[in-house]
């Protein structure tokens, strides 16, 4: 059995860990509120964008000549996967869940004999994927320096994807991120952004006849690259809210576990203290009796 001193030290160390996890939970909670607000504020933009694109693409009669971002290259050989993760750890299963989802997809792709290319956004994703998929990772991006999610970052990623697409580096592009449902549930998502799956775009198509200025094709080819950036931005917003939520619940349970541990250790400490006292008493009494 551990000595009294050892127990005392352990209790102190668990308590200080508990303090840290508690502080991290508080910070995560504050950040979560802001991230959630941002995610909600960002929604109208992407929703409107989706609606406009939906209206436009349903109006296109000539499917053959539709922009390639919408209709695809006609092939499905090279798949580009964008895996969005966080830059920091200690957020429970947040990163692991995304990676798990992505790995399942990667496996499917390689079983079908197609080429896989990966772009990781956020350093944790790179750390987890580099062991197995090092050769497939073409680019790693990290926004460690920007405090909050901003559109310029998303636009950078978007532009890079478009450039690669125009160079015909890939045929299909999918993004992986966590969708924020509530603090305890985040759902890992896979979303195909090139070619755009119009039937997956939510919203109600209308039969309104729009007037276009300039013509539909030009608007669409101007709009689709923007939509890529918007989708990535949306994913980044959802991700950051999910990250904070996931961290908050992880830190909450860590704090609780530490509390339980302190209770257990304190009981053990008290027991052994009492045992020591009893032992001493017995020694004194039996010493006195023998006199």
């Amino acid at each position, binding site marked *: 059995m551990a000595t009294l001193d050892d127990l005392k030290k352990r209790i102190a160390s668990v308590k200080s860990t508990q303090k840290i996890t508690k502080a991290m939970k508080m910070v995560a909670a504050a950040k979560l509120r802001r991230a959630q607000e*941002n995610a909600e*504020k*960002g929604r*109208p*933009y*992407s929703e*409107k*964008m989706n609606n*406009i694109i939906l*209206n*436009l693409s349903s109006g296109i009669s000539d499917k053959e000549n539709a922009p390639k971002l919408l209709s695809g290259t006609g092939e499905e050989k090279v798949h580009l996967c964008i895996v969005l993760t966080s830059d920091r750890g200690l957020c429970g299963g947040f990163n692991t869940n995304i990676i798990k989802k992505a790995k399942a997809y990667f496996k499917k792709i390689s079983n079908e004999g197609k080429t896989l290319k990966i772009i990781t956004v956020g350093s944790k994703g790179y750390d987890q994927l580099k062991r197995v998929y090092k050769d497939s990772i073409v680019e790693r991006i990290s926004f460690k320096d920007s405090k909050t999610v*901003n*559109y310029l970052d*998303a*636009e950078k990623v978007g532009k890079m994807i478009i450039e690669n697409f125009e160079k015909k580096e890939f045929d299909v592009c999918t993004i992986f991120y966590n969708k924020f449902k509530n603090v305890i549930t985040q759902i890992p998502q896979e979303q195909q952004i090139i070619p755009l799956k119009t039937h997956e775009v939510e919203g109600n198509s209308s039969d*309104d*006849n*729009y*007037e*276009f*200025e*300039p013509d539909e094709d030009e*608007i669409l080819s*101007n*709009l689709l690259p*923007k939509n890529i950036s*918007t989708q990535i*931005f949306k994913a980044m917003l959802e991700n950051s809210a999910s990250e904070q939520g996931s961290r908050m619940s992880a830190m909450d349970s860590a704090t609780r576990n530490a509390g339980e541990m302190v209770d257990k250790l304190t009981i053990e400490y008290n027991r052994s203290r009492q045992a020591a006292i009893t032992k001493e008493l017995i020694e004194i009494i039996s010493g006195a009796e023998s006199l």
Partner: protein
Amino acid sequence: MSEEFKIEIVNPEKSFLSKEDVTEVVVPAFEGEMGILKDHISIISFLKPGIIKIFSKSGEEHYYVEDGIVEFKNNNLSVLTSSIFNIKDFDKDKISELLTQAEEYSKNSEITDQNKYLVDQKIDVLKTLN
């Protein structure tokens, strides 16, 4: 009969402006300035750098935009833009900063015709503001 309609300007980060009592909006559409009144036909167009003028009962407001998309439908005007500034908050430093950036960009020899046209527009607008 009321002559008012609704406008909503959103940028990726938030809903920038929302007004219900707008009587007229002038947007810098790609092929020239376009005034929109109530019961305009449904239209989609994209923007070039310029000034959005919003006329409402509470007065006139001006915003500088660099790009974006406008959609007008059922007396709802939506403007999606990633770069919008209220002219009132625009100070000289900010303008000259944007101006220098734009001028540098236009000197780039690999620029496409369309981008050249857009950046020239931007320079013109910024110069008038300055």
